[in-house]
């Protein structure tokens, strides 16, 4: 029995009919063609499917689309603003925080939430903050650097933007 759901995804309101069992990640990928959110496991460990729901990082493979009815959802596709990369996207590029790119969207979304709560994390706090995200390519070394890069950029006085 399909259910009608409405949510705001990357700033746009969408209304669709879904089966109750449709996972949020499948809803994003199949119904909205937002294939940047990936599925890396089936036990809620790897974090490749991490997105923001109402500002909180969640694993979209462990949430039903119907549970997100009425929510505000942000995926990797909604992160850049006005064609400008988010400091984390920039950081991952500058510090070579990605290789195959598969874990990257989930990793970045988890990092967005991490910096949101702790704008000045230590290396250890970054490493612990990423416990819900697996990367098999980078050994995490450059991911940590990428997040440090972004933290620095976010915390810089906004004079560059103002001028």
């Amino acid at each position, binding site marked *: 029995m399909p259910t009608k759901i409405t949510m705001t995804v990357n700033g746009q309101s969408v209304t669709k009919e879904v089966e109750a069992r449709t996972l949020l990640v499948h809803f994003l990928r199949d119904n909205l063609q937002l294939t940047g959110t990936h599925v890396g496991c*089936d036990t809620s460990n790897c974090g490749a499917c991490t997105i923001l729901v109402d500002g909180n990082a969640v694993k979209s493979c462990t949430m039903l689309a119907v549970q997100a009815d009425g929510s505000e959802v942000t995926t990797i596709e909604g992160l850049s603003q006005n064609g400008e990369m988010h400091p984390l996207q920039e950081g991952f590029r500058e510090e070579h925080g990605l290789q195959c790119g*598969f874990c990257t969207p989930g990793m970045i979304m988890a990092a967005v939430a991490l910096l949101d709560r702790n704008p000045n994390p230590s290396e250890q706090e970054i490493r612990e903050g990423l416990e819900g995200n697996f990367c098999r390519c980078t050994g995490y070394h450059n991911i940590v650097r990428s997040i440090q890069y972004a933290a620095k950029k976010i915390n810089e006085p906004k004079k560059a933007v103002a001028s």
Partner: protein
Amino acid sequence: MTNYIGKAVKRVEDKRFLTGKGRYTDDIVLPGMLYAYIVRSPYAHAKINNIDTSRAEKMDGVVKIYTGKDIAESGINGIPTGWQVNFKNGDTMKEPPHPLLVADKARYMGDGVAVVIAESREEARDAADEIDIDWEELPAVASAKKATEDGAPLVHDEAPNNKCFDWELGNPKEEVDKAMKQAHHITTLEFTNQRVVPNAMETRAAIGQYEEATGKYTLYTTSQNPHLTRLLLCAFVLGIPEHRVRVVAPDVGGGFGSKIFHYAEEALMIWCSERLKRPVKWTSDRSEAFMTDAHGRDHISKAEMGFDKEGNVLALRVKTHANLGAYLSTFAPCVPTWLHGTLLQGLYVTPKINVDVTGVFTNTVMVDAYRGAGRPEATYLLERLMDTAALEMDMDPAELRLKNFIPPFDGVEQPGYQTQVALQYDSGNYHAVLKRALEMVGYEKFRKEQAEARKEGKLLGIGFSTYIEACGIAPSAVVGALGARAGLYEVGQVRVQPTGKVSVFTGAHSHGQGHETTFAQVVADRLGIPLDDVEIIHGDSDSVAFGMGTYGSRSLAVGGSAIVKSLDKIIEKGAKIAAHKLEASEEDLEFAEGKWTVKGTDKSIAFGDVALTAYVPHDYPEGVEPGMDFSSFYDPANFTYPYGAHVAIVEVDKDTGHTKLKRFIAVDDVGNVINPMIVDGQIHGGLAQGIGQALFEGAMYDEDGQLINGSYMDYTMPRADDLPSFEIDRTVTPCPHNPLGVKGAGEAGCIGSTPAVVNAVMDALRPFGIKKDLEMPLTPERVWRHMQS
């Protein structure tokens, strides 16, 4: 600025990945696409008495269900292997059929039995639950050693004692035995190099698309090796015409070896699509991936190393049982033999070496190349022997290595080093990497700290590992003689467009390695044009002439060299055109900074103008063809031989046995470096995987052949907080036989790191006596038990 080689150029591929616009196989949706779900054996070994699909066929959305019987009746050959290793007595290795779906009997937990094809993923999954299979469970065997014992269950009736082959390399056994007799000290280790699961973050997926109107087949697949997949698919499995088959490996989310091989699902999707006249997609779940992706390692070895009084190595004797799994995967026979036995010289002047390997079938998923493939196993064996010998002989493990290293040679002035096990090393200065690593670690200071810590009851340990690997696989004639059923050259095509922009087609495949950047750097640098004017195209058999894929750290050494060959041809032809336009002779021209200049003058013509002339040949040299497009096949003269020294420092919790990796130092020599940022990244990733094997990872089959840790709830993947920041450096000894002087960096980290960590734990446990039979992964309980014993 067009000087790109050696610069940490930011990756050109990143933008799409960072914005969620990567295009992986499962992202692709084709019109009219159907979805496949594969029903798999829950048993490691079982007869299929009957399959009843009648209820499932009536389920909503089900289009068709095929079983192993349908496959058998259509007369399809199974999946072949790409390498032949014969028995010592000359008999051909056992190569039992490997059907796309089994009809009579399942031979490992996960063996495909039936495929349900439905209008949606959900409907295919629902219907699969309604298939009734009458199984008759048979006794199973999972251990390579047990499988060879008399009376063990037989995986294939045609392979007595489950032996696929037995194989020997090195000096005659009698010579080695004789040398051992003269040894002052012999260090012996018996251990398992455990089975690990590659776990690329993207699971495998395949879409088969057959278009009736054109007779064309397209396979989208998560492959490191699209052309080889096409060749195997067409020539061996389905017998379909290769010129009508296109294999596309789009963005691929990591491979680490597991995506080199041609898998049954790829052929199955094409076969189903041909019958149903609609595209069919299969995407593996992670649980399915654990059961069906080829695993790595799984050697049971006995290794003995003999030393004289001064600690000089006299001889090495190795006996290995290598688990191959239930069927032969693409490179399976090659990994424990030619990629393992040949590396047992290591960095040492061991005068006598004999290695004996038995390849064994078991009721487990296939075992094949995993990052390093054979070389990590060889390195683990040697480096555990070295540290253990040092402990037993009360010598310093670093000193023992320095004493036994092969002296430096550059492969130009001094010849390459001929080993006892078939290979000839290209160039190396092994003392330099270890000395640099010791310096970085602050070795003397550490030993003092360690002594202090021990007084306080703290368990600090340091472990070493030095390694060499054979990469840049490989000279075709050599590998052909060793049993490869294909050549191992690479193809590089450079197409200069009329406006001077350059499209480069490579048979190497990038799935994280950054070819689109590194290769573009090589091209832009050589042609003296902006990086942005170069596009690297890979992974599509319709675009690229041919290719042997990416594995064995071969892309730049072999694939890059093929591109360089084509670039040379472009520059040579360009010179003819330039000479004509400049009214000078070719010999008077020089090519630099993207232009041909008449030596000693300011008369020049830019690359772009020459390109345009080649395509608009109004005023053109006689006898020269229009256009600028060259393809080259590069077949290397030898393997390349990266090497390095790794050092781990650990602290073991005395109460729990938990190991904390505190520092990891790696000094690698991968030859010349095109993009240091990318090389560093490759090293980091390899280190994490090697450390993972030492401390966390290991596939566990119980004695009934059930994989009992087939999910991330039970199989430990290294996480960010399990690892320290890595301290890495390198030395540069160029490869003397390829035009770029590169050796390869993809596997280095994974090869050197595992034994360093294990050795460090053993060193930490030194106050409890000399511990050597601790099995990987070094779980807290195992370490704790050692402290109790």
